[in-house]
């Protein structure tokens, strides 16, 4: 299961956090800081996985990708395939890219609700619901249309 999805910048400022297991707010902040501590110590040519058993529970792993100024981080347990999650991050970022036309950190800062919408179409309750970027796009566009239609 995916326990959490985080987007944070390279300074450690969270830009989006979504916890699929219920975690008290203070603990969430603690986890975010711990994850940043791990990621900031890792070099560019390291692998995209890091052990998170001390951060959020046994057999948990961070699967992350670094794009420009942002880290996209999935905290997953043993039931997920690390490589598949990496692909999923790619799908997530690609979809954001399509929606914001060359997504950058500011897009995510100012449109956190839209980013949530995209993520909700990909992951639901900690399980992957859709892996096809085009299908995600379609649902997200429909939802945006509904939101505007008032």
């Amino acid at each position, binding site marked *: 299961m995916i326990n959490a999805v985080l987007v944070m910048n390279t300074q450690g400022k969270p830009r989006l956090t979504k916890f699929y297991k219920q975690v008290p707010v203070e603990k969430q902040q603690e986890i975010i800081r711990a994850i940043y501590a791990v990621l900031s110590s890792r070099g560019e040519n390291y692998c995209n996985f890091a052990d998170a058993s001390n951060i959020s529970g046994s057999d948990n792993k961070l699967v992350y990708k670094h794009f420009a100024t942002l880290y996209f981080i999935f905290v997953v347990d043993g039931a997920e395939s690390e490589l598949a999650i990496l692909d999923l991050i790619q799908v997530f970022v690609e979809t954001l890219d399509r929606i914001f036309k060359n997504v950058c950190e500011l897009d995510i800062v100012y449109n956190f609700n839209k980013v949530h919408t995209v993520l909700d179409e990909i992951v639901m309750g900690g399980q992957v*619901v859709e892996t096809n970027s085009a299908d995600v796009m379609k649902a997200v566009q429909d939802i945006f249309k509904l939101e505007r239609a008032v």
Partner: protein
Amino acid sequence: MGSSVMESFFQRSLDDLVKGLRVQVIGEARYVAKALEETRKEIKSTDLHTKAVAVQKLTYLHMLQGLDISWAAFHVVEVMSSSKFCFKKIGYLAASQSFHEGTEVLLLITNLLRKDLGSKNEYEAGLALDCLSRIATPDLARDLTPEVFTMLTSSRLYVRKKATLVLLKVFSKYPDAIRIAFKRLVEKLEDSDTQVVGAAVTVLCELAISDPKPYLPLAPEFYRLLANSSNNWLSIKLVKIFGVLCPVEPRLARKIAEPICEQMRKTGAKSLVFECIRTVTLGLSEHAGAVELAVEKLKEFMAEEDPNLRYLGLQSLSPLMSSHPWALTENKLLIVRCLKDADPSIQVESLRLITGMVSEDNVIETVEILLQYARSSEPVFCNELISAILSTCSKGIYDLITDFTWYVQVLGAIARLPNCEHEAEVERQLVDIGLRVKSVRGDLLKVCRELLMDPALLDHAHLHKALSAAAWVVGEFAEVAHDPFQLIEALLQPRTKLLPASVHAVYLQSVLKIFVFSTHTWVRGFVSTGDQGGTAVVEEEFEKNSREGVKDQEENLSGSAGISSPVFHDLNPNSEERIDNRQHKKPMVEDKEGTCAESNVHLATRISSRLILEMMELIRVNVSPLLNSVEMEVQERASNLLGLLKKVQEILGVRNDKLHEPMDIHTMEQHSSTAANVLAGIQSIFSVEPGPVSLLAQSKVTVPKGLDLVSSLDELGHPSYVDDDPGTEKDWEDGRFFLKKSRDGSISGETSSLLALHREKHVTFYLPNQAYFGDSNDLSQPLQEDAPMLSDRLADSLMLAEPKPQGSKPPQAKARPVVIRLEDEQEPFDHPSKSRKGLKVDILSTTIREVLMENKTKSWATSNRRDARASTSKHHRRSHRSAKSKKHERNEHGDVVQALDETIMSRDAIEDDVNSPQIGKAEKRSDASSRRHSKHSKNHAQLTRENREGMRYSRQRARSPLNIQPEVAIIPDFLL
């Protein structure tokens, strides 16, 4: 920004908030507090738009600043229940981000969710489903199960796939929902749309990982899906499911090995290949072909440029470590290469594999490699390497080490590594090896001497612990030292003042030991030569040898020994005798003396009177300043040492001012026999050899008679509150209390008299009277009684492990030297436990098992009827065949295939009978008993089938509770 009037008209939007946060100059915390204050007002607004924006801002602050917004929960619900989609969405996002089990308003949203789940708009339904998947409570899950159940058959794909996924949460919160919805979930495996199938597989995969057994019956379905799957994500999940199913059902593993290999061969997706590899390593490790293919693929992974693949490749090799060691050795080069990978996590993985590969044969080679990497690695990984070396080599009781000479050198090298942080472990092992491996003491001493002699090492605080161990070793095992003078020089070098007090004290204590030992050896040699009346000759010999010896030790060593040894053997017949004694395994102390006597022969040749004098002078000059040390421990040791030195000098008539006059030496020698007695006494104290102590040593001590360890201490109460002394009250009144009590004990005063009173009352818990109040001799009395007994025991247990007498040096790197191992010694390091974690019986899987069984019972009922009919037939073959399930009976395979299947089945039946406690239902009984029938038909030929069934039935009733599901038979024969 605008005036306060303007603000009330124009609410700040989320964008404003974000912008403000980015440019604020008053500090983030203050800005957030201000924004929060603003929002508190806005959220009370009757205008839904204002309220929604306020909720949205709160969600933002909650998410990124970790703000508690539970106070706004009710407003969130208000926004959620708006009919406008844009507001509703804001509300739902806020709810799913901030609500938790303890949120009270959750009680209010059941109807809202119900309404939205049933919405005509699929995205509204989607919002509700998504929210439910995150905040479901048992109540919500229970109340909304019917809605979710209906949605599973929705005509809209979007709703169907989300409803399928939400089942996972519903099941986990409300297991009874399984009875209603599980069947439909399984039906979703055949859904027309792959997304829904994917969702169903995802849910089943998650469930199967927590407890695989109940899902075995679905194996054929999963198999079919895997064979037809073109979606990688789906395939990965399916392969994962097989990874957990196979270990619990070996027959399934046999069937699935080939299809998994097929996937591995044909797919181009690394993620799927990797998942297949993982499944093979976890569940199919008995299938040679599959493992070979997996290892081949792993090799490709590890040679890849992509660090991800290297990391995962290394990780999935580790399950093969115990079952297929060849998989690791074959890839050893690749693995070792990863030790210098840029990524520390890859380094650590590779180190883990390498230490797992270490065996007696390759330990030296491997440790040398690791040591080499440790010299060039970053501090963190360097310490990982050191820790790996230390724990691997000391595993068990140094089980892997045959060449201890090499290993103590490794320890010395580790101590010198500039980044070493494991000095405490090095310290422990240096001492431990010294105690346990007698034959290596000479080499150990050499290593320690080198550590001690290097003045540069004293600068490094991290080395102090190792130095402390080294100092202790040279002191304790001084009898194997070739050059006590050098050791004392090293221990007293000026830079030792850099040491912490505790270590410095060890240094001084070792100086004392070495000094006593060498002086004693010298004096004894002298006395024995004196007895023979050959003083002058031998003394000259001493002088000559020793002067050369000190100048050029290594070179002269063999020469001087050659000259003087025969002289000594002639002059001191005792030493011969003692060596003999040693070979007959005398108790510890005598044994030690024997060793001393033997080494005296070597050493005495090099200890001259002049040397002893120089040693005394060295100690006096260097230790005297330490009398003023501020550290008590150092000061005390120094004064002990100097006190002894003075005493010895007095006896020998040495005067410090006339040290270099030859006359002095002669006086000294005249008094040597007196000195010999004194020194022998002290030496005998030091020569009691400490040994390793077993963790269970305490249990060997028998409880002395009369010592009551069992009675409860509760009744003791506190001595100050003696409640029921009949005389107390009156005594208090009369003021005679103290008078009365002070007669019993010699101590007076309130507390002590109360204590005495207490003592009188609970006499069993106190030591005998004279021991308690009497003088120190009395105190030690009862202990002394036991003392010989205890030491005997200890000696006994040590003797059991006494090393066999060997030559003075062990043959290099051949037979493993004897390592003292106490009979009941346990390994100090835990091996990773091999047992899998026990399957926890949770409600969820029990329910699922029940649901699945309901489905199956129908078909089994049919087959049972057939069984019953068939069993009346006396024809063995017929009854045997009928015992198979319906499907099997129908199948028109040739006899050969069936025979094969039958052998498999009957073997399994026996295994089941032995292993499985979970037998009990009628299906299983008939099935198993008929299989048993095929195996033992001859023995039971005269019994009717019904009788046997009856017997088994009653036996199983007695053995296991009813109503537990069969473990194996639930797999349809399609796969078997």
